[in-house]
């Protein structure tokens, strides 16, 4: 760069902005830029699943085609008779693009401790597609700044409306709310459902829409599970949920009526890894499970045979918020924070929940390749079915396939 011989002369009266204005504008521009970068980052996310990639491409191509045809039709339309002009004007001529629109969602940029006030520097706005965005969130920073976190909120998580408050304390004092509870606004209640394999009843906790009830009288103390082909919305322990409901008694609960899946049969899954292990025994191999461990504020531990939605919990990468198609009979192992690229992870214990049979020739092969391994991983023999892995859920699919197929593996950090 050349020398600044073009700068302003000393003896001319040079207007100067007020420092406050310059500073405010600077911060606003930086925030705008970050927002823009975040949006670009989301749009540029790699699609690892080939089928999903193809689907997205096809949808995009179809939208472009429809738009082109519509525009062409408009341009080539001959002048309308006067008596039909009014009717034509009221007819929509452009396709609705709500489905591909985006919506701002306030998210944390670092972990926020319970009781910590939200400030601008720990929040950001991420534009989610309307289809995938979480509901019951904030769409502007101003609504969150100055409020206090009710629970520990992981980094890069949407700030749910029910996890912020003006003050943790009320006239009854300052409550002790357990940490590691995510999205506690959903209320659950047990329903009886037959186990198709065993012909006996199991407890399924479903999310009702619009109403709430206390659980302490209706849910057995040892009941923690869940089950079948349902999207995971969130996870927490019953104790956490109960305490939350008790503490928040003065404040009307606001169950999300339009959560991602408003179906009343959406299952809330809560269990410790040990409990999962025990209860998983109650299912045979044909029973697909969705299991979320107690520490599911990190990455959920999932065993499922159906497409599911992995919610953003503690993953620093919004990629985890996209819909992931899990291959049939696959097993996803991960009980701690999903490692970031380059992170060193010492030990993550993953339990084997189901015996996957006939994996020598699985009908559906995992679509995730080994090339995406993003963390140090090692396998340790532990009591037969136990392994130690530190991988992302998607990569665990591949690992499990390799393990079960007895394919030699060499894991490279």
């Amino acid at each position: 760069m050349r020398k600044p011989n073009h700068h302003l002369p000393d003896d001319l009266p040079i207007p100067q902005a007020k420092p406050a204005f310059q500073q405010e504008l600077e911060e606003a521009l930086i925030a705008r830029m970050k927002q823009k970068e975040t949006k670009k980052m989301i749009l540029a996310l790699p699609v690892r699943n080939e089928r999903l990639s193809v689907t997205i491409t096809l949808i995009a191509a179809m939208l472009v085609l429809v738009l082109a045809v519509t525009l062409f039709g408009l341009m080539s339309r001959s002048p309308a008779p006067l008596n039909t002009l009014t009717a034509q004007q009221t007819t929509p001529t452009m396709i609705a693009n709500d489905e591909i629109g985006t919506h701002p969602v306030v998210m944390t940029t670092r972990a926020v401790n319970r009781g910590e006030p939200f400030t601008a520097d720990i929040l950001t706005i991420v534009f989610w597609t309307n289809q995938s965005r979480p509901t019951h969130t904030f769409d502007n920073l101003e609504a969150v700044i100055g409020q206090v976190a009710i629970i520990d909120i992981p980094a890069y998580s949407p700030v749910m409306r029910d996890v912020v408050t003006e003050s943790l304390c009320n006239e009854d004092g300052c409550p002790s709310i357990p940490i590691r509870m995510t999205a506690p606004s959903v209320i659950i209640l047990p329903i009886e459902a037959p186990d198709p394999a065993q012909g006996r009843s199991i407890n399924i906790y479903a999310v009702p829409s619009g109403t709430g009830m206390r659980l302490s009288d209706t849910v057995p103390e040892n009941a923690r599970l869940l089950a079948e082909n349902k999207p995971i919305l969130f996870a927490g322990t019953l104790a956490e949920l109960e305490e939350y409901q008790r503490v928040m008694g003065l404040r009307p609960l606001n169950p999300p009526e339009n959560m991602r899946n408003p179906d009343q049969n959406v299952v809330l899954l809560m269990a410790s890894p040990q409990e999962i292990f025990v209860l998983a025994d109650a299912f045979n191999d044909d029973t697909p499970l969705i299991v979320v461990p107690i520490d599911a504020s990190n990455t959920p531990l999932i065993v499922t045979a159906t497409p599911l939605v992995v919610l953003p919990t503690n993953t620093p990468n919004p990629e985890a918020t996209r819909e992931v198609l899990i291959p049939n009979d696959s097993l996803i192992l991960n009980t701690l924070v999903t490692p970031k690229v380059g992170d060193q992870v010492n030990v993550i214990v993953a339990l084997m929940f189901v015996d996957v049979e006939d994996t020598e020739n699985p009908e559906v092969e995992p679509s995730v390749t080994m090339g995406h391994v993003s963390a140090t991983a090692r396998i340790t023999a532990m009591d037969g079915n136990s392994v130690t892995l530190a991988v992302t859920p998607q990569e665990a699919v591949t690992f499990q396939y390799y393990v079960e197929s007895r394919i030699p593996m060499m894991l490279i950090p």
Partner: protein
Amino acid sequence: LNPSFFISVAVFGENLHFSEGISAAKTVEVMVEQDLIEQARHDPEAFRQLYRAYFPRIYAYIAYRVGQESDAEDLTADVFVKVVETLDRFEYRGDGAFAAWLFKIAYHRVAQFYRQQTPTLVSFDQLPDIRSDSPTPDSVLMQKEQFMRLRDRIQTLSPRRQEIVTLRFFSGLRNQEIAAVLGLDERTIAAHLSRAIEDLQKRYETDGKSP
């Protein structure tokens, strides 16, 4: 302000001693501007450096053009928002290209401003602050008065020369950069500048008092 200043500018051009005045500009000098611009496309901190380097010049330019502090603030904000939105599309084409691009945005924004409203008289308390190393109440008033007189005199010039003088003396652009902003030949800029300085000098002599 001595009228001979204008003459010396015309004669010696780039050899004048200019105050850097803008601390952040030094930071920019450290880095190659091109690298900084490339970085600023995706790195908010790099953009922050660019902003700090160019903000005072953009503000000074706009303030001279519109006179009123609140308008200057609005327009400056508009310019930088536009910069954030369009920085991805900026193509670096050599030294001075970024300044020219930036001031072109400011130039168009001011032009748009005047298309939407006619120039109005600016009262003394609406004037922007004036840069000063040791501001005292008296000096602040005096500087604002100087600013107002100088601006009044510049406004007696043709619109084109007003632009050129403002871009040259209050925004620190070189003739080459002004030419890029206004889409003119560099020699035309030099000619306009020379005539503008002569006109200002005559005006000064006619008024018979310092600005």
